[in-house]
């Protein structure tokens, strides 16, 4: 009798676990994969654990397609954390529709400028992984060549607003990603001391 109860309980648990994995949303899977990349500031809705991260161009494209602005903007965090993902941007753009390409290009340039703005905090945290992101779109977006990163971020935000035809605080949106990522990493560093 005890054995049958144990077997029944075990089978229910396994089924519940399987069901919980099957019902995990794409957003939740992406957020879990971001965790594997060291980006953990986004809140989780389930205990789902990702086994691996999808290929860079797919990850970038899938993030940009998300309905949630927080998750879309995490593209900036990916690029700040893994500048090698810049090489996957052209392939990711090919996977995207026109409006989505606009988002990826805008967020890519935001990452380029945020990296310059926060270089003194990012560089020590990334250590050997540190690499400058190449400037891929500033000519195409008509961004000024001169000025501080903050001034150029403001120019990017104005152009982003014009192109997206959405009155959003784009500069604040970009900065918030960098702030959250840096805060998460700096807290982690303190804990690990």
């Amino acid at each position, binding site marked *: 009798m005890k054995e049958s109860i144990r077997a029944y309980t075990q089978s229910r648990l396994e089924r519940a676990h399987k069901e919980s994995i099957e019902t995990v949303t794409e957003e939740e899977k992406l957020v879990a994969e971001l965790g594997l990349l060291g980006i953990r500031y986004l809140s989780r809705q389930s205990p789902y654990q990702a086994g691996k991260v999808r290929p860079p161009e797919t990850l970038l494209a899938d993030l940009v397609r998300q309905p949630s602005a927080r998750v879309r903007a995490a593209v900036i965090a990916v690029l700040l954390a893994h500048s090698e993902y810049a090489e996957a941007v052209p392939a990711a753009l090919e996977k995207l529709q026109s409006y989505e390409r606009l988002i990826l290009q805008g967020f890519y340039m935001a990452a380029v400028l945020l990296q310059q703005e926060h270089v003194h905090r990012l560089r020590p945290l990334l250590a050997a992984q540190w690499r400058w992101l190449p400037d891929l779109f500033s000519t195409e977006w008509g961004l000024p060549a001169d000025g501080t990163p903050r001034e150029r971020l403001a120019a990017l935000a104005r152009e982003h607003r014009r192109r997206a035809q959405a009155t959003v*605080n784009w500069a604040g*949106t970009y900065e918030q990603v960098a702030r959250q990522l840096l805060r998460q990493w700096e807290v982690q560093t303190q804990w690990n001391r």
Partner: protein
Amino acid sequence: MEPVTLDTLQSFLQRLGERYPSAGILYLLGGSALRPPTPAFDPYSIALSKIARGFGADLEDVMFLLHEGLIEFGELERHFNAILPDASKADIDPTEFRGYFEEIRRRQK
């Protein structure tokens, strides 16, 4: 859109608390007082705070409150018009504030 559960509400409030460590600011921006039996927060104050900041995720949060029926657009507009003249006292650019509010109106249609 997922339904509001206790967990999602707690998660929302936690994120809100992280962004706005001083709860008093929320109430001032909203221009409306908490009234019993309203439990812990005024959704109009939250919505107006988010519109004032205007990040992409903030505007989505306001649309969520509208879609879930937690706030009503006409009432939100009434609060907005009431506090707009004092926006600069709270270090909020009135033109930007108006722009983000109009963005909500556009998304609402």
